């Protein structure tokens, strides 16, 4: 089956609108959610007493090691009041927060012990130590890695097809199912992903080099 430009141009607006309204929204809101939650987990892992910290590690491992689709379906059926889009944002946000927590952890662990000791010597309160001393330094090393996870998350948004969210790849599949032309919709969807993720990945690599000490 050959490529039909007319058909491609016909389906492009629909795919782009699904991309902007669902894929991009889930990625942006999901990334912010994951970045905030990830930081909470990372600080929790460091500040909690050993037993709760260990429990938190297991919970994070569990979320990280089980598939996104099963988690999506679970919340989708367990809480029927949520819309597919809300389920998608919540689950993708939580799923990737467990990965981002690892990035934060690595960043926090890279801070020399002397910084903590200096904060203690100056008798800074714990909250202020985190806010003014540790995090500004740790985040510098963490940001490019968070960006990479956001890109990975972006490429996982098509999993929303499991809960019938009107996401770009589901739309492409529906178009294919209705018209029996799959080539154009899937090619366009793939190219849109490539066009959005590749430049961002390069940007992150540049940022990584710039922020490196």
């Amino acid at each position: 089956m050959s490529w039909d430009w007319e058909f491609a141009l016909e389906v492009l607006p629909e795919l782009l609108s699904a991309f902007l309204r669902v894929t991009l929204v889930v990625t942006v809101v999901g990334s912010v959610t994951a970045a905030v939650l990830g930081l909470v987990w990372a600080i929790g892992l460091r500040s909690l007493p050993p037993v709760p910290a260990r429990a938190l590690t297991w919970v994070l491992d569990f979320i990280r090691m089980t598939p996104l689709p099963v988690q999506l379906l679970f919340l989708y059926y367990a809480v029927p009041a949520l819309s597919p889009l809300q389920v998608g944002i919540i689950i993708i946000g939580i799923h990737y927060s467990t990965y981002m927590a690892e990035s934060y952890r690595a960043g926090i662990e890279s801070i020399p012990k002397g910084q903590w000791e200096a904060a203690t010597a100056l008798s800074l309160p714990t909250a202020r130590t985190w806010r003014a001393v540790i995090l500004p330094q740790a985040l510098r090393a963490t940001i490019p890695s968070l960006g990479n996870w956001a890109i990975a998350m972006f490429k996982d948004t098509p999993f929303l097809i499991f809960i019938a969210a009107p996401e770009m790849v589901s739309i492409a599949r529906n178009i294919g199912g209705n018209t029996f032309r799959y080539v154009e919709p899937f090619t366009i969807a793939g190219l849109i992903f490539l066009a959005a993720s590749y430049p961002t990945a390069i940007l992150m690599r540049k940022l990584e080099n710039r922020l490196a000490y």
Partner: protein
Amino acid sequence: MRDFIDAFVGAAPQLWDGTVTTLILSLGGAALAFVIACVLGLAAISRFVVVRTIVRVIVEFFRGTSLVVQMFFLFFVFPMWGIEWDPYTTGIVALGLNYGAYGSEVVRGSLNAVPKGQWETTTALSMSWPLKIRRVIWPQAWALMIPGFNNLLIMLIKGSALAGFIFLQDLTFVTEQLRRTLDTFTAFGLGLVIYFLISLICSYILRWMELRAQRRLGLKEARKPRTDKALGGAVA
């Protein structure tokens, strides 16, 4: 409790079939991904610019276009071009290509991380290319690449959950079916725990392989902490 046990026993055959399908896809995909990763990874450090450029394009293409799109492309578009595979082959090829591309970056990074002196020594001893890779470079790079492979293997297992969309009855599919006979929490609880166990066992096996590789290099004590750069780099 009795009801639960009865329901579980009733569901066990289905769960088992689903688990087997998931395992076939994951292990088949992982085997293919490993081969692709090694070939592309070695080609990525080739002396020839042309080879390196071709590898770059292949890798960026498969990393950039999302697994879901690739699997659908293989499943829906390829038959229209007269290339028809059974769903298992389609799933394994899609997983293998996608994670093979990610894996090649792990291989490339690890080969580059082998100290330069090792490469120079093999040249000084005028070892042939296969000999120096096999006897000197690979064993050292191998220990470095296993943590990266470990992360990717877990992601691959999770990616296999897509199988339901190419008409395979994998563990995710079975879990969703069970929701109708058991309740939502039990069905998904069982599904998630089985996935977790599969991932955990695979991850322990790879960690054991990593330790073994380090021991063979005499590095057992000096276990490097998992750096996030390797993790993030494998994903971007």
